[in-house]
């Protein structure tokens, strides 16, 4: 099956700093999503981005499908950005998605 790696595993940022999270995957995919799991355990969809670039406020994401990676950019980080960020991929848009191990982000004031 598809293998998903995420880096870094842990990240501590000062409020206001920028960061880049990376997701590598081992096979071609037609489904890639980024999620944020807040400290209460709720999973929040950030981006559905099997290819290309999207932006939503302070967050943006880029997927280079041919090179099998995706990047999530967080700018001007806030304490509410803390939590775990997961990348999840699937072979097709109708298929199950497999989650990466996550990046645990802590934003300190």
């Amino acid at each position: 099956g598809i293998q998903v790696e995420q880096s870094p595993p842990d990240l501590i940022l000062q409020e206001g700093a920028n960061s880049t999270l990376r997701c590598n995957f081992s096979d071609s995919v037609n489904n890639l999503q980024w999620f944020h799991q807040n400290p209460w355990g709720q999973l929040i969809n950030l981006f559905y981005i099997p290819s290309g670039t999207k932006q939503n406020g302070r967050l943006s994401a880029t997927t280079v499908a041919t090179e099998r990676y995706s990047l999530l950019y967080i700018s001007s980080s806030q304490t509410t950005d803390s939590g775990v960020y997961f990348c999840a991929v699937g072979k097709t848009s109708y298929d199950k998605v497999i989650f990466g191990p996550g990046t645990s982000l802590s934003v300190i004031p």
Partner: protein
Amino acid sequence: SAVISQKPSRDICQRGTSLTIQCQVDSQVTMMFWYRQQPGQSLTLIATANQGSEATYESGFVIDKFPISRPNLTFSTLTVSNMSPEDSSIYLCSGDRGRGEAFFGQGTRLTVV
């Protein structure tokens, strides 16, 4: 996007007992999935809940331990059977209308004592 309601949101159960978790979507979805998230870990897919037929289980998960039902396109249940402390996890239901964007319920936090 659609909303998934999951219940119970949390429970504490005695070992050897079973717990059934319900997942209700506010509109029809093509695909429904059940995931487990062990403490400090990522999400692991348990099975795909198929409407009107047996669920499709991932390696390491069996129907006797995690029976799943999906009687229609908006509802599914997962039962965790004969529980042990190792089953203490968050169990999450997800839905997908076939456009690829999965969305999740709030999860069921299970503690087995």
